[in-house]
């Protein structure tokens, strides 16, 4: 079933949590709502579940308007951040709870529950209580409870955020695989951009109750529409510099540097009178300890060896840029260095509107 948000607005008193939110989730898609705390992503999820009533706007599941339907009639399953396992019941009874409510006969219930438990490798825990389980196990029980009734839509509210880092990384792959196997439309809320990038078919970046941009991970990463999206996705974050255009020297001029950028200026419709923001990701900067024509001069500010690569922080004028460098590179602080930018990966944003200037 596909999901459609149409001009959804939700206010809590004076606070607007969602503002004219419109989004379509195709059937079978894994859509991630990504954004910082307070951006409205959880509110959007809860409105879909029926736990919040929208102030205005329409929500459709499979084309049908569900605004008036109670949560139990929407055929959605929600995995909570806190898992919300019923503490007084065993794992098995937790999983079977939604089936029990639907008066599915006991034998059938047990069979279905064991099937799902086996699939998530928690069958051995069937008779334990939630307080006897580890975080990862509890999360699987919450998942099992959601899967067992084969709903139309999975809703997940930051289900991995309470797990330790290693388990989180493992579960990301498992969740994605599970979703592909089941083929159920999934709406997933997170503030972790790594989770979004790795798991999503499409990402919807949100900010202050509004949708900033929606697209595939590639689109979000390589073609961000706004400065906000550009800075939010990717770690370390994209380098952003204030620049102006000097058409005489065919260069982008910024604080402490002048970058000759003929092809860039040809590819974009730019105006000399405007301020722009130059965006380039750390991996698209090449660090060199020797001067290069067409590169930006700076000084080493800090070096972070990561093992597989080294992150170098470079001071250019008043700004600090980050570049990914070879794993073996080491340099002393204040060493002069030069950064070369891959021109086809250079992005220009209008400093006033913060929107990307499209390529011609």
């Amino acid at each position, binding site marked *: 079933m596909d999901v459609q948000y149409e001009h959804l607005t939700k206010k809590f008193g004076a606070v607007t949590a969602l503002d004219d939110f419109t989004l379509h989730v195709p059937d079978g898609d894994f859509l991630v709502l990504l954004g910082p705390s307070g951006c409205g992503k959880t509110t959007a999820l809860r409105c879909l579940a029926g736990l919040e009533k929208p102030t205005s706007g329409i929500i459709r599941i499979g084309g049908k308007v569900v605004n008036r339907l109670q949560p139990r009639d929407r055929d959605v399953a929600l995995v909570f951040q806190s898992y919300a396992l*019923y503490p007084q019941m065993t794992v098995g009874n937790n999983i079977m709870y939604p089936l029990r409510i639907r008066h599915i006969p006991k034998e059938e219930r047990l069979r279905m529950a064991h099937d799902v438990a086996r699939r998530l490798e928690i069958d051995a825990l069937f008779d334990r209580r939630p307080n006897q389980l580890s975080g990862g196990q509890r999360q699987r029980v919450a998942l099992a409870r959601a899967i067992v009734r084969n709903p139309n839509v999975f809703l997940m509210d930051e289900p991995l955020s309470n797990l330790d880092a290693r388990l989180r990384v493992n579960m990301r792959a498992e969740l994605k695989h599970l979703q592909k196997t089941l083929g159920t439309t999934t709406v997933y809320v997170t503030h972790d951009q790594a989770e979004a990038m790795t798991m999503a078919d499409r990402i919807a970046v949100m900010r202050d109750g509004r949708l900033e941009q929606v697209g595939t991970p590639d689109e979000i990463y390589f073609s961000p529409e706004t400065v906000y999206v550009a800075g939010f996705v990717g770690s370390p974050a994209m380098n952003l510099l204030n620049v102006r255009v000097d058409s005489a020297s065919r260069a982008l001029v910024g604080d402490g540097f002048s970058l000759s950028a003929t092809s860039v200026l040809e590819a974009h419709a730019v105006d000399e009178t405007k301020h722009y923001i130059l965006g380039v990701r750390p991996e698209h900067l090449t660090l060199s300890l020797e001067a290069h024509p067409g590169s930006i001069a700076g000084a080493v500010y800090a070096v972070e060896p990561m093992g597989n690569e080294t992150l170098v922080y470079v001071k250019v004028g008043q700004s600090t840029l980050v570049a990914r460098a070879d794993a073996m590179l080491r340099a002393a602080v204040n060493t002069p260095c030069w950064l070369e930018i891959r021109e086809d990966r250079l992005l220009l944003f209008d400093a006033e509107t913060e929107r990307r200037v499209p390529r011609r």
Partner: protein
Amino acid sequence: MDTRRFEWSNIIGTAIKYAVLLLIMVIVLFPIYWMVITSFKGRLELTTYPPTLFPKNIILDNYRDAFSDSDIPRYMLNSVIVVGVSTLISLFFGTLAGYSLARFAFTPTFKRQISFWILSTRMIPPIVTIIPIFLIYRNLQLLNTYAGMIIVYVGFTLPFTTWMMRAFVREVPVDLEEAAMVDGDTRLTALLRIVLPLTAPGLVATAIFSLILVWNEFLFALILTTTSATITLPVGISGFVSQFEVLWGQMSAVGTVAIIPILIFTLAVQRYLVRGLTLGAVK
């Protein structure tokens, strides 16, 4: 040198602590002890001077006289029925009201007003309302009825049970009910199946407090009941103070029996009582 002085003051401190505790215990328990031994004393021994701390002869006459061929058993039954039913009703509505106050988003003004309204019922001295209630009951023919007494006692305890149940429901994470509602429950079934079992200790604690509140109630029982059909135990016991003499022995016998139900009930549920009392304390 120092360690010896430290030990010394420590011992004295502990001794004083225990002495004070013992003293308090004696002061609190002595009336009950006195009542129990009085119930076993014969008429003669009751009036000897100096009074005996332990009965010279243990006699069961008082019990015999008080219970056989008297209305006391009936009074006990009335108490049990009136207090029991009113506690149940109070718990039922109090839990629903407490749940609503805990879960539904009312405006802060409304919440403040409701809270004050609930507390205000405890601010009025009961005696102020007794005459109006008497007149109303007379018109509605509720005098000397179980229903009349139950209504009054529900009125006493309902603010209290609402207040306590609201606190206990707050302790249960909202997530659980929401999970149940998405799983397929209505709000009501989620309350019954998920929330209530988790508030069980609180429910028990509230029940006990509510019960104790009305078991000893005297004023309304005195005014609103007239015959042995509905007279409750506290009023019945006071009947031993007659025009001619005070039947200490029989009064004590009934008193001793009167505290037994509450004692048993509290002993049986004290485990839940402690949990219920401290549940709200640690988040």
